[in-house]
């Protein structure tokens, strides 16, 4: 379910990682540990999880998708600028 286009086939979408990761601001001092957490360290949760997907063969918008990593059930989708509650 693309929040821009509606129900679309799964193979139009492409996975893009954990949606809770925030890129550190540019030109800001950051410790090695924090930077490594941003670049490499992920929780790889089992269960409900907010992910980024791109509607790559559609509107090309990046969207946020709440998905269960064990059952693949999708609960919610948000536009890129909408905040996860």
């Amino acid at each position, binding site marked *: 379910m693309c929040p821009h286009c509606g129900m679309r086939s799964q193979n139009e979408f*492409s996975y*893009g990682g954990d949606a809770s990761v925030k*890129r*550190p601001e*540019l*030109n800001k001092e*950051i410790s*090695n540990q924090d*930077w490594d957490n*941003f*670049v*490499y360290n992920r929780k790889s949760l089992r269960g409900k999880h907010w992910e*980024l997907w*791109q509607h*790559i063969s559609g509107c*090309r*918008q*990046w969207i946020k998708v709440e998905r269960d990593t064990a*059952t*693949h*059930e999708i609960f919610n989708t948000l536009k*890129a*600028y909408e905040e996860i509650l």
Partner: protein
Amino acid sequence: MSQSFRLNDVGLINRDKKLSFKFNGVIYYGYEGDTLASALIANGVHLVGRSFKYHRPRGFFGAGVDEPYAIVQLYRNGETEPNVKATEQELFEGLEAKSVNCWPSVNFDIGAINNFLRIFLPAGFYYKTFMWPKSFWYKVYEPFIRKAAGLGTVSIKHDKERYEHKYEYCDLLIAGSGPAGLASAYAAAKNGARVILAEDKARFGGTLLTSDVNIGNQTGKEWGDGIISELKEMPNVTVKNRSQVFGYYDHNMLVMSERISDHLPSTKIFHPKQRLWYIRAKEVLISSGSIERPLVFGNNDTPGVMLSSAAKEYLKVYGVLVGKKPLIFTNNDSGYETAIEFKKNNVDPIILDTRKDPQSEIVDEAKNLGINIKFSYVVVAAQGYKKVKSADIAKISDDKEQLGEIENIICDCICVSGFWTPTIHLASQSGNKTQFKEEIDAFIPGESKQNEKTLGAANGIYTLDETLKSSFEAGNKLSKKITNTENKVSFPNVIEKKSTVHDKFWCVPLPKGKNYKRFLDFQNDVAVSDIEIALREGYRSIEHVKRYTTLGMATDQGKTSNLNGLQLVSKIENKVVPAVGHTTFRPPYTPVSIGAIVGREVGKHSKPTRKSPMHNWHKKNNAVFVDAGVWLRPRYYKQGNETLFEGSKREAKNVRTNVGVCDVTTLGKIDIKGPDAAELLNRVYTNAWLKLPVGKARYGVMLREDGIVMDDGTTTRISENHYHMTTTTAQAANVLSHLEYYLQLVWPDLNVNVVSTTEQWAGAAIAGPKSRDLLQKLFSNSDVSNEGLPFMGYMEGDLFGVRARIFRISFSGELAYELNVESDYGNFMWEKIMEIGEEFKIQPYGTEALSTLRIEMGHVAGSELDGRTIPYDNSLEGLLSKKKDFIGKRSLTREAFTSEDRQKIVGVIPLDKKTSIPEGSHLVKDSNAPLPNPKLGYISASCWSVEYDNPFSLAILKDGKNMIGEKLYVMSPLKNKVIPVEIVSSHYVDPKGERVRS
């Protein structure tokens, strides 16, 4: 040979159509409507193969998907297929099949020696025996196992059959057309729901075809036929036979394989052999029935021992007797039904019932027919090697521990019935947590997980009346919810004979002094003793026991063996079955051919093919094409008998001396517009972008956040807020997504739009010392002098009335330009370049010459930007801005990336200046060092330098900075080559870059 086991007037086969077929080279006859199994049994053939481990003789055990034994190699229309179940393969004229697992022949089998060595081949034998000594694996065990224990031969020819995929949706998908499937489909269809009813077999009806029941004053079969013909007429119903729903996935998506042509001698023109259906169903009704369980006793794998339900099916559907002196061994009433069918056809069976004194209508009927019934009796062991000849039987004590005196009775088959196991695979795959039902000693589906409901025998309901009632109701209720319509059908009157409870006893104890094998898994030869060993050795989890013993791991996936295995584990462990739990059910329920999974996506259809607007010109001019991602690009333009090496050398040389033209349409192009465009570029590229003037291009490198180089290319400022970015062919799609990611998610405040224009522009690179002269003639109205269009300059020009973009950029190290016109004019541009270029001796060049030119210059490309290198490794560190932040910058300060002896790009020349260096070879210090020889680097790209006329390669080398002038060795174990080389600068030609600026 005559069909001496065929009855005259029983069965559903078409006796008007006689078919001939070959099995192991012998010609037999059967009828249309037979399976290979029923036709073989009709001809008295019971020996069809050898077992996997001990190579014991194998016959038929079932009559359908549960068959563990009768696996054959099929030959059809010039093709061959392994792992075909004879019980599923329908007979056709000219069918040919052979036994598998036997060498040299089914009657004399060398592997059967294993049978006498079996004391050495207990549970876990693969893990224990064949792992030691190591050298024995390759020389002795592996070839022996391969030759002696294969499961058929895969064809290595291209499969010319056609397979299709179909996507479908429906309100109700009903899997199985037995009584439960028919009743629910009928009720749902009447309510107007879109229904798909799928049946695995050729005939609809399931158990209605074989059971002695009466529904609405018709036989079960007549009632079923009536329902099916009515359903077939309804526009909202799709009825499919030969179709197995084999997988239940997320979001109520199920996959079904339809065997369209497997039952025909050859596939009809334009028809597929098989079709894979992806079905999204609002509701799924699982009416997959149940499978009879074996009883376990000595030598219970001897040909002639089979399920009693299979014997009944062979008789009633195919008119075939599995034996003329049948012994029925049962712990429930089902065995009696088989016995009664034999008796009705003038064959006298003997029933051995483990129960002491069962009372039911069915038992009474058997008694009234005068059938010989022995209560509290068991089969201790089957006797006979290639076919049952007799049975050792004995009375069993009430506590089922003590055997009485052994008697031997003559029989030619033993039909076993150990009660019924619901087929819960689909429900379990959907995520349904199954539950153990004590009354039937088996698992049934629990609470629904997705929109699925299991009906009838698959749900542990074994009476017809209850099955029909609950299925009518389920079909009606679920469809009403969807269609808001109700056309209730009246429920027919059902007459069936009542049965009584089964006996929980299923595994006959060994008599004193006898060591018979009692098999649980008939395909993988797992016996009771193997499970006992596994438990004794400490395996507890049923998943571990399964893997250690291979119980249930064969092609039949333990359809007949799993539950007995569980019962045994729970008995030995003194646990209840649900505490042991069952192994996971995974799709597919039955084997699916690779062809069906792949579908039409084979050969050229496996991916799209992209062609440039100039493709036809290339083709006409003898281009030899190469796949570049999904693009087809000219590799070289062949003249006469030229090889790739000769042709590309000629083309590259011509660029260095005259002028060449190359199709660069495939380069990724991204149009970037907006007031913050420069700021975006400044953040994604490593170098500075804020001060690039309009009409100028700049080379840039972009990184991933982890500091690895992602892509490189030039970006040109077309106007104040408008940029044209180029990417490598391979990374075009990734770079666009990368930009969109940052614009949409990370920096939404940037006012920029990006869009791919790769297909909108056709591109031609003209390169060589004479390229400016050519350009001037192409654009006679423009000043393209070194001052008018300097290096990295950009202008628009008029190419004989066509608007063109002219970039002065170079990938070859020569004076060079890149022209872009709208795609539709691509061919026009190309032909003009060739026409006017003639006087400058222009030649087109392909990707091979393109590579040569860039390697000589030390320009990096995909083989260096391979997802493992940072800017320093590619000598691009000069492009790293110190003043500003950019994507990935912080990562470059990490330890591994700043070490003193960090790898770096270098050039490599063979000392003899003759030997070509294979790409991917390793660089080592000492070619004679003991293995593993420390690797210092690897060759990323190789060419034949046209400038110096000797081989030249690029390499990524440890401490490359300090290695210039060193002598090393290139080693390629793959090509068995050792080449002494010298390390030189990666900029082999024109290191100061004077030519591009001239």
